[in-house]
């Protein structure tokens, strides 16, 4: 399985390459990608140098252009696709059907991958993207069980890439409006979930209060681990009980089930976290590289030691081993 790793800065890309990534994915410094955070991402010149560096080490680079173009501003997204092709990235990760069509028409030789933001989770949807736009790989949303992924892989003609490590999403990827509701900005349109300008932390005695816009997301006791300030991971009170109504602050980690994912026909493993530092990239990519190499050598008992890097410092296998319907 191909190891697809994140990079929010050129330094992170170098770290990913050094740690054993097969592919590094990144985005331009604007709203065309779903990690549009302050000080993050690549200028055109930086991406050109990054591609040169990665290719020199036999590593591929994918460009995420996976937000939905805003009406009247499509030019920014079209230019991102054009520039990515001109720079020589190995694949472009897209979600919007208009943009997929633009890429197909203007760059018929470009390798197109379907972003998780498109939320294509069934055979018919994936077949549509393949037939209409020539999509060659689909990044599956984090809603499918291992058995469903296996069945899907037997029925579709394109490669599948699944999330292997990192932050979880509330399983309506590309369709979530919680951030937009709270702040006016969303991952789908603006490339940012819970933009930092709307996030506020307050130390109140021994507790930490996190807020997004006018919403209190959580109040952490001194001994509790903290998660990202997103509404989906907020702790709310309902029917006299407080708890994580949508999703707990936890990270995905599939280290223990890598052989099963390979057996299910998965082509690539994606590590989430373009917003994370190069220390995270080095450790997570290095750990997955080691695990994959051990599995390739026939040792099937890969164990994770990455919990300190996880959101809320806890991990889950998410829907892959889901016990709910």
């Amino acid at each position, binding site marked *: 399985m191909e190891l697809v790793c994140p990079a929010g800065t050129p330094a992170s890309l170098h770290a990913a390459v050094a740690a054993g990534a097969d592919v590094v994915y990144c985005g331009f410094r604007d709203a065309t990608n779903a990690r549009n955070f302050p*000080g993050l991402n690549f200028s055109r010149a930086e991406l050109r140098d990054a591609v040169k560096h990665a290719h020199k080490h036999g590593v591929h680079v994918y460009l995420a252009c996976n937000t939905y173009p805003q009406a009247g501003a499509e030019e920014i997204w079209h230019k991102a696709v054009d520039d990515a092709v001109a720079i020589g990235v190995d694949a472009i990760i897209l979600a919007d059907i208009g943009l997929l069509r633009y890429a197909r028409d203007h760059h018929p030789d470009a390798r197109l991958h379907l972003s998780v933001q498109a939320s294509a989770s069934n055979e018919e949807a994936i077949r549509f993207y393949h037939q209409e736009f020539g999509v060659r790989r689909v990044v599956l949303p984090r809603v499918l069980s291992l058995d469903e992924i296996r069945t899907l892989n037997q029925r579709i003609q394109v490669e599948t890439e699944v999330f292997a490590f990192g932050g979880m999403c509330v399983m309506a990827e590309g369709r979530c409006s919680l951030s937009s509701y709270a702040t006016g900005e969303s991952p789908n349109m603006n490339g940012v979930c819970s933009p930092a300008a709307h996030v506020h932390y307050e130390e109140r005695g021994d507790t930490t209060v996190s807020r997004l816009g006018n919403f209190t997301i959580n109040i952490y006791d001194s001994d509790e681990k903290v998660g990202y300030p997103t509404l989906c991971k907020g702790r709310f009170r309902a029917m006299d009980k407080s708890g994580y109504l949508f999703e707990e602050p936890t990270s995905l980690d599939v280290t223990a089930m890598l052989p099963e994912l390979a057996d299910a026909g998965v082509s690539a493993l994606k590590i989430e976290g373009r917003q994370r530092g190069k220390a995270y990239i080095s450790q997570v990519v290095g750990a997955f590289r080691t695990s994959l190499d051990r599995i390739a050598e026939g040792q099937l008992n890969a164990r994770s030691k990455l919990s300190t890097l996880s959101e809320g*410092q806890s991990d889950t296998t998410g829907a892959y081993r889901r016990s709910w319907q």
Partner: protein
Amino acid sequence: MTESHPSFTPFLLANPFIRNAPALLVERICRHAMATMHHRYRPVFERVAEQEAFALLISPTDLDLQFYLKIDADHPELRPARHIEEETVAAQISGPLPALLELLQGTSDGDALFFSRTLRIEGRTELVVALRNALDGESIDLRSAVTESFGVMGPAARAALGLAEKIYRQLQHDMNRTADALTSPTAKRLLGVEKRTSAQAVTLAEIEKTIQRRNRHTRPKPSGAAKDDFALPVNP
């Protein structure tokens, strides 16, 4: 903005010296450090202060000293902070000095430090995020920066720094053992209390279930035809 609890690191032992050090000397060291950083890593300042210059309060939780850090493309500033400056800074970053230094050099992940509550942030989060990302985008090497700033005395400074790091690691080891010796009896006692509390919670849950079962058996059966429990009484 609030005060954090002190972190148990070897830098705590430096506090008597810091408290009694001449203010001018501390200011001079800060100024020199900032000039060196600005000279070596100018793109960081340009990238972060692209939109606006701003100031942060850096609060090492193991030092009796806070730092005023002004991020400006051309005229950055680092100096000991005065109390009144809490009002004028855009944000405050608190944490043990070793963690702050690791963050500066990109050897620790900022989000992980934040998840574990090692690092705390208050104020304008977007500026702190921008600074973190810009720092992480550079390969900052404090050891080289310090030794090079000593010019011809560089080799001597490198040797001194190496010795200081060795002593620091030994101190850290000894302090961890001391902390363990001091806290382990209480930790054991707490564990015992926790086990007893869990056992009592299980017993209590069983008692509640028994009471519920008994109540179901003793409840009088409804008489007459079946009726809607939720129907409102009809006024005659």
